């Protein structure tokens, strides 16, 4: 296909929408990673594994209800809590003893945790591919700008901003959110004014895990759920939080938008080499703004 031919307004529009919907999933997962990075200063490589557990949990809950639409909605609501619970156990038993360690140690530790969680998923769910179905209302596609646009992606476009707004209210309007934000900037000071930093940290970690789980549950109907899905996402989300500004929630949003939209437009402009577009964008951003688009809390 000629480039000029592909550059119609409707083509650009549909690819923008597709890219935006992909960015929503990336944002949900990356915001959790960013939150943990910002507040706890932990580069959690196991974040992708929590996303994978979210997807597998969604599968189990969906199946528990015989694959009915109710099962789907429950899976979407409950799977993130399952992951949050896993996060709570991991934080209280392991992470809480390690916050003072240097980053390299934490990186090694979370890498080990990623391998362990990966194997636990294999033991618990087996190595088969799994799949869940969105309910009838979200299946199929609707015509948008002369092309077909999957209804589920439309749903993602609604949920993504809701999550962003929820996170905004949480970090700006609630007390614990404000404390978490303060701890991200200066944790000694937060401790010095008599706040139990340990529980703030636990809460922040669990919230990060919840978001990973939510991302996993949200993506589940669009892919085949399998071992190894943790690896790709963890690389992508780390790049996103890096270009957005480490630990900055809105940076994660901007990073996700850059990543999702460059990927989608890459497919439109040069489908043979679409893979490289998001990474080129990452390189450009890092040359232009080495600490990321927005202010890093590190």
């Amino acid at each position, binding site marked *: *296909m000629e480039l000029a031919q*592909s550059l119609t307004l409707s*083509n650009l529009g*549909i*690819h923008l929408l*597709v*890219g935006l*919907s*992909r960015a929503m*999933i990336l944002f949900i997962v990356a915001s959790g990673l960013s939150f943990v990075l910002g507040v706890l200063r932990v580069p959690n490589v196991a974040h992708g594994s929590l996303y994978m557990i979210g997807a597998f949990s969604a599968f189990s809950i969906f199946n528990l209800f015989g*694959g009915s639409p109710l099962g789907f909605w429950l899976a979407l609501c409950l799977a993130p809590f399952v992951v949050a619970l896993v996060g709570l156990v991991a934080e209280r038993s392991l992470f809480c003893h390690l916050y003072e360690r240097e980053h390299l140690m934490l990186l090694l530790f979370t890498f080990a945790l990623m391998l362990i969680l990966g*194997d636990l998923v*294999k033991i618990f769910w*087996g*190595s*088969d*591919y*799994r*799949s869940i*179905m969105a309910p009838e209302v979200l*299946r*199929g*596609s609707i015509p948008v700008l*002369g*092309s*077909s*646009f*999957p209804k*589920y*992606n439309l749903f993602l476009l609604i949920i993504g901003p809701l999550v962003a707004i929820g996170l905004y209210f949480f970090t700006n309007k609630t007390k614990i959110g404000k404390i978490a934000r303060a701890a991200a900037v200066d944790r000694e000071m937060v401790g010095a004014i008599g706040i139990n930093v340990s529980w703030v940290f636990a809460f922040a970690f669990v919230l990060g895990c919840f978001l990973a789980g939510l991302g996993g549950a949200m*993506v589940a109907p*669009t*892919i*085949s759920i*399998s*071992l*190894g*899905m943790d690896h*790709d*996402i963890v690389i992508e989300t780390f790049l996103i939080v890096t270009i957005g500004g480490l630990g900055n929630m809105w940076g994660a949003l901007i990073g996700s938008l850059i990543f999702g939209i460059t*990927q*989608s437009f890459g*497919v*439109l402009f040069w*489908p*043979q*080499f*679409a*893979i490289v577009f998001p990474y080129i964008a990452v390189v450009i951003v890092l040359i232009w703004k080495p600490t990321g688009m927005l202010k890093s809390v590190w």
Partner: protein
Amino acid sequence: MKKTGSFMGFIFILTVCLLAASFAFLPAHAQARDIKVGILDAYTGPAAVFANDALKAFKLALEEINKEGVLGKKIEFVTRDTKFKVDIGLNMAKELVMREDVDLIVGTINSGVALAVSDAISKKEKVPFIVWISKSENITGKKGHRYVFSTADNTAMGGRSGAYALSRKPYKTYWIAGDDYSYGHDLANTAWEKLKAAKPDVEKIGESWWKPGEPDLIPYLTNIMTAKPDAVIFCTGGLSMANVLKAVKTTGMAEKFPIWVHTATDHAVLKPLGADAPEGVMGTMHYHFYYPEIPENKAFVDAFKAAYGEPPGFPAFNAYVTAKLIAEAYRKAGAVDKEKFVDALEGLKVDTPIGMLEMRACDHQMVYPIFLGVTKKLPQYDFAVSSDIVTLPGTEMLPTCEEIQKARSAQ
């Protein structure tokens, strides 16, 4: 004095124990031992589902074979995990040959591992190696040699069967899309080359390539649909396969465009999708547990189901055929000898669940018929199956012996 005495006593006992132990191990080498197969495969990661399927059927086949034995011996096996990585695979293969002293190596789903082991271990150490899942046509094609065999279907067969199927359709313009690694490109190249040869007026209007396992294919499919080709060829495997079919279903692509995907009709792909699988996608496959409906296939499927509670996939079938081949080849060779084993395997015909099949002598490739079908939901299954199956003759789906010879001598 007394202390020294007890110390000497301890040394004496230790020496006796060590001697006894070494004698206990010696006869193991001295006596006629069983035939030992070294299995090399990816038992961790997403590919484990295929590797385990193969292993299960291999065990099942050995149980049957060992009832009567081969040359008065049993066939035993040891496994090693490649973790889907070439370097680990090579080390594990070395370990199988050096430490486990295996009579032959079988296995591996990863074409990279298969080619590396074929070259660095099998060819160099003169150890027979039967590849049972990897689909690179180079294994028995241009990189083939005396000691390597394949009981897997390969990209040459896949591409040829696709070209065969599509050349009989009226489509003119095509879009080719797939996984950006050797399997995807090999399949695409063969399919397009053969299709173009059979029908010179076909035109390729675009290509898309994504990384293997890419979770989000919607942008790619949207792009293809706006280009409006007459038909679409997807060259994907493994994990991407399910993702492609899911995206095809979500975008409603199958209703608007004819699609051919090699192995789209594979049960391992269609089962997890359940009712979410798209209908009307053309696929090609060399084994289905529900086809052909002959007693031999039914017996194999029933035995597999009884043992493991699920029907066998194509890796299971390949591994089952491999076990049969190994037993038959040793019987024909009359001795546990690597050279005689290779000679015996060449041109060997074995009875399999889908009928008599031949290990082609000229390139050491198992000749499988290919089943061309269309995905369809039938009331008796809660997953989609291949329907309206046409059987394409195996020898026509393979490169000719001359083509193989030319490719090898060009190396």
